[in-house]
């Protein structure tokens, strides 16, 4: 297989997924025809919109086996994480001032909690093991009498590891500590059941399962209290004011219905492609190291780091051949920053023990339901060519060939 200028291969589904054409179709009437405001209770357009909102809520609830009324629509996972964490703390101030999160949370959890720390909260960052798992005994040991909240993601978009949330949430429940899980990377891609997991709150993101961007949801266990973070009218039971993004919500609901109906086939397909890619890479390079859990991981997710070559140049070269992937490399981290101080190696890679001098060589390949075996084979054909070219440029590789350790 030769490099093909016409290829447009998208292997970055952990960043976002394309909106399914059936989702687009479901959304279209809600822009110009059924444009009503669900808060306009009396006239036809408003009533129609309100009914659609209720039905959409039911569809999203079904995806995570939640009662319909427990779903709060938000502008996405970031807002849902903010609402769950700050909203819970503000509504339950008597609980204490101690927060526990894992070291590998999304920025919307980590940066919020760092801000809360500056505001006077105590923050414990739970370490993960080299496969990216939070250990229940570590959580147990970190808990205090004044622990107010625990937030641990369900799955990592960067290293693919799926946490044992059920076990972790059970520990929180022993002492009645509020347990939130960010399931942005997992919900819609693997089974997520809030009752089985035993969580108090859970974040869902539409654009991670073939829905539109700009819409997400927070599950809130019946009886749990939150303080609203966006203040205004009475939408979403007062938890989240602002006229609902109905077209987006309808899209999220349609994507949730499709995800639920097609999940077994999608997972089987993705697990097959994942195996094909993994096996194609394993044993090819002794300086390629997989990250995350080998089996307890998101379907279609393959992540690794390489010695001697840098991640952004790897991404850039693959993109020249039409293959779009992601890297946790510092140099690829924030192209829109003002200067190099806006660049930082991934905290997730550091947390799983990848030494800083190697973090720069990381790559995340996240496959989607519409990717094919042919595309994976093309990647496996192109990848060694790209690696070879970058090794030829690398002074580190030159040193290694001369028997020196370039990292010392």
């Amino acid at each position: 297989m030769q490099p093909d200028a016409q290829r447009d291969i998208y292997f970055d589904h952990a960043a976002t997924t394309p909106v399914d054409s059936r989702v687009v179709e479901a959304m279209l009437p809600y822009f110009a025809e059924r444009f009503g405001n669900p808060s306009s209770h009396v006239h036809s357009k408003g009533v129609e919109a309100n009914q659609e909102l209720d039905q959409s809520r039911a569809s999203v609830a079904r995806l995570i086996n939640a009662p319909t009324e427990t779903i709060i629509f938000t502008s996405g996972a970031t807002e849902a994480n903010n609402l769950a964490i700050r909203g819970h703390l503000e509504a339950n101030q008597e609980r204490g001032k101690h927060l526990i999160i894992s070291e590998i949370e999304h920025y919307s959890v980590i940066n919020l909690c760092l801000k809360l720390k500056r505001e006077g909260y105590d923050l414990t960052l739970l370490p993960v093991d080299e496969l990216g798992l939070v250990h229940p005994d570590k959580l147990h040991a970190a808990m205090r009498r004044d622990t107010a909240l625990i937030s641990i993601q369900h799955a990592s978009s960067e290293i693919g590891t799926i946490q044992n949330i059920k076990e972790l949430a059970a520990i929180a429940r022993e002492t009645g500590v509020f347990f939130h899980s960010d399931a942005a990377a997992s919900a819609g891609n693997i089974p997520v059941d809030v009752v089985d997991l035993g969580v108090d709150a859970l974040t869902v993101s539409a654009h991670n399962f073939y829905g539109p961007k700009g819409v997400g949801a927070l599950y809130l266990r019946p009886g749990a209290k939150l303080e609203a973070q966006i203040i205004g009218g009475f939408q979403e039971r007062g938890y989240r004011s602002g006229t609902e993004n109905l077209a987006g919500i309808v899209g999220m609901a349609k994507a949730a219905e499709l995800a639920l109906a097609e999940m077994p086939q999608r997972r089987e397909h993705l697990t097959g492609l994942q195996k094909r890619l993994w096996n194609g890479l394993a044993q090819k390079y002794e300086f390629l190291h997989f990250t995350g859990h080998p089996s307890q991981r998101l379907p279609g997710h393959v992540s690794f780091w390489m010695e001697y070559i840098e991640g952004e140049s790897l991404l850039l070269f693959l993109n020249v051949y039409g293959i779009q992937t992601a890297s946790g490399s510092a140099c690829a981290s924030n192209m829109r920053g003002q200067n190099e101080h806006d660049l930082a190696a991934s905290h997730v890679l550091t947390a799983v023990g990848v030494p800083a001098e190697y973090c720069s060589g990381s790559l995340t390949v996240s496959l989607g339901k519409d990717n094919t075996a042919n595309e994976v084979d093309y990647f496996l054909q192109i990848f060694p060519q790209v690696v070879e070219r970058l090794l030829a440029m690398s002074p580190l590789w030159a040193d290694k060939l001369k028997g020196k350790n370039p990292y010392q």
Partner: protein
Amino acid sequence: MPESASPYSKKVMDHFVNPRNMGEIADATVVADVGNPACGDMMRLYLKIENGIIVDAKFKTFGCGAAIATSSMLTEMLKGKSLEDAKSISNQAVAEALDGLPPVKMHCSVMAEEALIKALEQYNRSQEQKPDSFEV
């Protein structure tokens, strides 16, 4: 090479995909290393200097697209230059020759300038240590 949408200028991409003067000079007059793997970029600059003229320049670089492109452009600018003229090549000049770099990537051009300064210093030191050499 196909043209994909890129955060870099066409010229940067050209120098990244088809780097000029990439490799080693076996009988280099000076070899200068700057940067390190922990910072995510490292450049090794090889210069062959004869009679005060840079007759050949090559590089090896571990780093992002901007690091590789600035290395390539620097060596292009150095070849055939007198040491005096080479001294005045700044990182801005290298970045401008590439039709600019994203602000966050300007430090990559600084690495190229640092490599040049280090190589020239090394050369000057080596000349001071050989007072009997026949430098013209």
